[in-house]
């Protein structure tokens, strides 16, 4: 049972990690908690669902389509809800704007698609295989592999490309980066696009895996992923991955060995503990406050 629960936990954790990456990337660069991020994940799940039902595409195309749409959506949200406020007002205003964008997106989707929970048509064989004592479904394997692939891809992008270098520069000091000739607005746009694409991929896979897509699915998932990002050290990309996976495994193990009634209490209790012992998160760097 331990192994089985570990597989369950890793799957759940990788989906948290995919969403957490978006929070952490945006925070790392503009110090904004993008509360609309959970909704982007939800829209991703719906776009995938639409593509599958309307054109009967396969999983790969559904994911690519959802990622493309959500990239644009993420950039639009940034352009409309955050950029006009950047630098002009207090740090609080974009945060409120983010909450507004979040409510706007989930309500809009409720109007467009209805409030009922929908399921994906069977485009992936959901049956499971026995590996010794462990039952693994093909979707679990897909989630683990795709998440790993996307995270490695992101790592390469940030470390090895020019835009990645620009992102790192911006995360160190936005103003200095601008003075060095980096087009800061474009870098921020790209950051939102990449984070949103990861969330969309997560949305499609989660939608298929749990067979449930609904307009308010982003709220709780967003909250959990945000907690994961904080736990791992907000602003740190490996931290978000580690935080997501840790949170997923902890939640599942809490249910398995303590009690399902305390599921969230355990997960969030550990989050609080981490923050008390290491306020910067597991992999976060101590930030010396800029004066």
């Amino acid at each position, binding site marked *: 049972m331990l192994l089985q*629960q570990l597989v369950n936990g890793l799957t*759940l954790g990788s989906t948290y990690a995919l969403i957490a990456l978006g929070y952490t990337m945006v925070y790392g660069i503009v110090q904004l908690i993008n509360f609309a991020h959970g909704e982007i994940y939800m829209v991703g799940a719906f776009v995938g669902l639409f593509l599958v039902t309307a054109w009967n595409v396969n999983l790969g195309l559904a994911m690519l389509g959802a990622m493309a749409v959500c990239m644009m959506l993420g950039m639009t949200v940034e352009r409309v809800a955050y950029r006009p406020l950047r630098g002009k007002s207090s740090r609080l205003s974009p945060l409120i704007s983010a909450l507004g964008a979040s409510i706007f997106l989930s309500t809009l989707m*409720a109007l467009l698609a209805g*409030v009922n929970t929908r*399921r994906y048509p069977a485009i992936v064989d959901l*049956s499971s295989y026995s590996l010794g004592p462990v039952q693994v479904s093909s979707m679990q394997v897909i989630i683990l592999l795709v998440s790993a692939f996307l995270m490695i891809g992101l790592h390469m992008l940030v470390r090895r490309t020019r835009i990645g270098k620009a992102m790192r520069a911006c995360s160190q000091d936005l103003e200095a980066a601008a003075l060095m000739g980096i087009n800061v607005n474009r870098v921020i746009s790209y950051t939102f696009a990449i984070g949103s694409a990861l969330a969309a991929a997560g949305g499609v896979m989660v939608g298929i895996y749990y067979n449930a897509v609904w307009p308010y699915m982003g709220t709780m998932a967003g909250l959990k992923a945000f907690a994961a990002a904080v736990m791992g050290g907000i602003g740190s990309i490996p931290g978000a991955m580690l935080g997501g996976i840790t949170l997923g495994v902890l939640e599942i193990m809490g249910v398995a060995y303590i*009690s399902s009634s305390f599921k969230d209490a355990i997960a969030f209790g550990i989050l609080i503990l981490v923050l008390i012992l290491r306020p910067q998160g597991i992999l976060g760097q101590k930030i010396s406050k800029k004066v």
Partner: protein
Amino acid sequence: MRRKTARKWAVVLCLVMLLALVAGCGKSETPAPAEDTIKLGFLGAKTVKNANYGIPGEKGMKMAIEEINAKGGVLGKKLEGIYEDNKGDSREIANIATKYCTVDKVAAMIGDPATGLTKIAADIAQKNQVVIFSAGATGTGVVEIGDFVFRNTLLDKFAAPSVVDWMINTKGWKNIAIITSLNNGYSTALTPVFKSAIEDKGGNIILEESVNDGETDFTAQVTKLKQANPDVLVFTGYYTEAALIMLEAQKQGLDIILVGGDGLYGEDLKKLGGSAVEEKVIFYAGFSADQPSPETDAFIKAYRAKYNEDPDMFSAQYYDAVMIIAQAMEKAQSSDPKVFKDELAKLKDYPGVSGNTTFLPDREPLKSPVFLLTVKGDKFPALLEKIPTSAPQV
């Protein structure tokens, strides 16, 4: 210059929003002159949460009001329904109930389908001396709130013991697992009812787990369930989570029957669960469109003609609620809640479209029979069996 245009736009936007607000108000206040009608307020969700109960409920209520008005209304006055959407939210329903009682001055509020929300509205109704008639609240502690509080639905405390008896003695399912949804008041109230019934009838509870409404990951719970290997699973929550639990069970190769209350009565159970719930989810309810009585049959036909779909338990119970209230008003010769509530409490053997109803001395409804429903092929809900309600000692 830019800032000026921005300001202009802001002003325009504000105006548009103000207009929308005014237009919105206009829509919800389209009544005929106030004194000629008897107003009934609808309590239920049309969006967000529990909309699957509220939407058919509203249809049933509208139909009953239209039928009564077509026959000349009540006491020579027309009935008028007011239909606000409480979104399944405890703050919203408090606001709406207060509005019904103090602004609209309704004679009675009909709803909510959920126990927790009904209690909130019932407190307000009792204080304002307005009758509240829930067409769905099955949990405990509702009519105890006061003498203006009524309900007409198959009560869990009568139905669950009958179902447990059927599980253990007819089916021989003795080893039972129970899953509760912790953030669902209906579920946390129903679990103890099931548990005490299981103990009374000699069953064993071998596993107790919990989930939360709105969650989708039930892998850990199902893995534990698989290890405990019970004869049957009792789930006391709503249809969405029931479907997701069964889907996860199917994924993990666990073949099990899930039994639950009328919280599972939602078409999404079938849409979401598909083959995972087919003939594997059994729930009880006080209404079934199969094997109808003459009253039910006429109702079903009229409903189909009007809405082009089958009625469900909620449409039937909201319909009955309006009819029962209208009858009490006629008998009491008054539409004053303080007067007709006493007539309402005397209801005996009312042959409603949602079964036979008698109000016991404590105003609790005794309804019979209990319908065991399931999903069969494309049919939802399909009647599995009719079992007698285990009546309390009166």
